[in-house]
């Protein structure tokens, strides 16, 4: 086989064994090709300088440990999937999204349970208070009317007291009426104040007791 200088690059790139032999034979008589062939092969020889096949005794054990850990993790995941047949179909991202949605639903449910819807609850409370207040006020009115009847019966003895005892009862009833008037005024400004209502009731009971004593004293 005859080759020339013009064949050199083609042979360098993809020459057959026969073509390389022919090129070397040609290079023996061609200084240019001799230098080119030598330089070309020099690069291959130089490349061997980049070989360092020394092994590190700790390197394989390190890789083996990493592989074993990964295998153990995979086995754990496989075991988990065995018991959770639905999970494998969801990626970790979807699982996170589902968990987030669940937390959101639980939070909203908890909020609704412990913080019932504002306007409706407020109305219920208002109705309840209003209803209780009406009951108290009507009981007070009835009680007041009943006491007024007692007061009407005792009125002659109190307005013209025959004894110092009746005079004392009269003064006590004036004080009680004054206290009852004060408490009623306060209760009018704060109708839902149960403490005022209790105090008012106590005053009425005291007035009733006093009037009964007046009537009993008249009979004696």
């Amino acid at each position, binding site marked *: 086989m005859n080759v020339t200088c013009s064949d050199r690059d083609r042979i*360098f790139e993809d020459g057959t064994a026969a073509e390389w032999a022919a090129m070397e034979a040609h290079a023996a008589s061609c200084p240019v090709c001799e230098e*080119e062939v030598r*330089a070309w092969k020099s690069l291959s020889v130089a*490349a*061997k300088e980049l070989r*360092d096949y020394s092994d590190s005794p700790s390197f394989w054990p390190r890789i*083996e440990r990493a*592989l074993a850990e990964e295998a153990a993790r995979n086995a754990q995941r496989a075991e988990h999937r065995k018991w959770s047949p639905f999970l494998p179909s969801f990626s970790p991202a979807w699982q996170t999204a589902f968990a987030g949605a669940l937390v959101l639903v639980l939070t909203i449910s908890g909020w609704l349970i412990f913080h019932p819807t504002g306007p409706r609850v407020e109305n219920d409370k208002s109705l309840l208070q209003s209803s209780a207040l009406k009951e108290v006020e009507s009981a007070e009115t009835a009680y007041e009317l009943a006491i007024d009847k007692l007061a009407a019966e005792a009125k002659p003895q109190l307005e013209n007291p025959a004894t110092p005892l009746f005079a004392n009862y009269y003064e006590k009833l004036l004080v009680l009426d004054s206290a009852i008037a004060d408490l009623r005024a306060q209760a009018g400004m704060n109708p839902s104040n149960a403490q005022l209502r209790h105090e008012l009731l106590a005053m009425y009971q005291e007035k009733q007791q006093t009037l009964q004593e007046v009537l009993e004293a008249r009979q004696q």
Partner: protein
Amino acid sequence: MGTMGLALPWKARISSTPREPAAAGRWGRRVEPSEQIAGGPSAAAVDATSEDAALAAACRSGDLRAYERLYAMHGVRMKNLARNVLGNPIDAEDAVQETFLKVQRSIASFRGQSSFVTWTYRILINTCYDARRSRLRKKEVANDDSEETPRMEPRAPGAHPTLRMALERALEKLTRHQRDVFLLYEVEGFRHAEIAGMLEMTETASKNTLFQAKKNLRLMLEPPRSSAAETR
């Protein structure tokens, strides 16, 4: 190409005899200087193929001894290749370890369209370039723009340390494919058919890329024309 010689430090010391076949195991053997093989696949090639398939099957079954066999056959070459791409042995070991883990994770998806070892090296090369990119990003974040290419750390003294350093610097100036093909063919001793599988290119492209790589390396390593003229 001119007639001037390379001003390579090894010029006076290396012979022009054909290089020896790559002494890197069965996967490194190739026909020199051409790769053309007459006839069908040799018995050794058939053995290699069946052993490759057996190794893949054993790895797929989760047998750690299969991975150890893979390491025994290719570990040092893988580390050397990673070292030449990444520039230091620590990053190289990390890349090789990561490659083994990736092989373990994705062995189920290996369909045997290429050889198992070729597939493994493809993963290694991609892992190395991922590491290079990651390193570059870290440098950008740290505003350290002092160098964009990996700094070659000193390795065990070889026969021609000056030559090695000159070659390492020149390799960094090649394109990625030129560097990869040069390293895989000239340093690691793979055949173009194997390189084509690793780099997902044709054999012809692999040969052409090697040719371009060596031409560029010659240009980078040869002295300026004037000084070359003086030496003659």
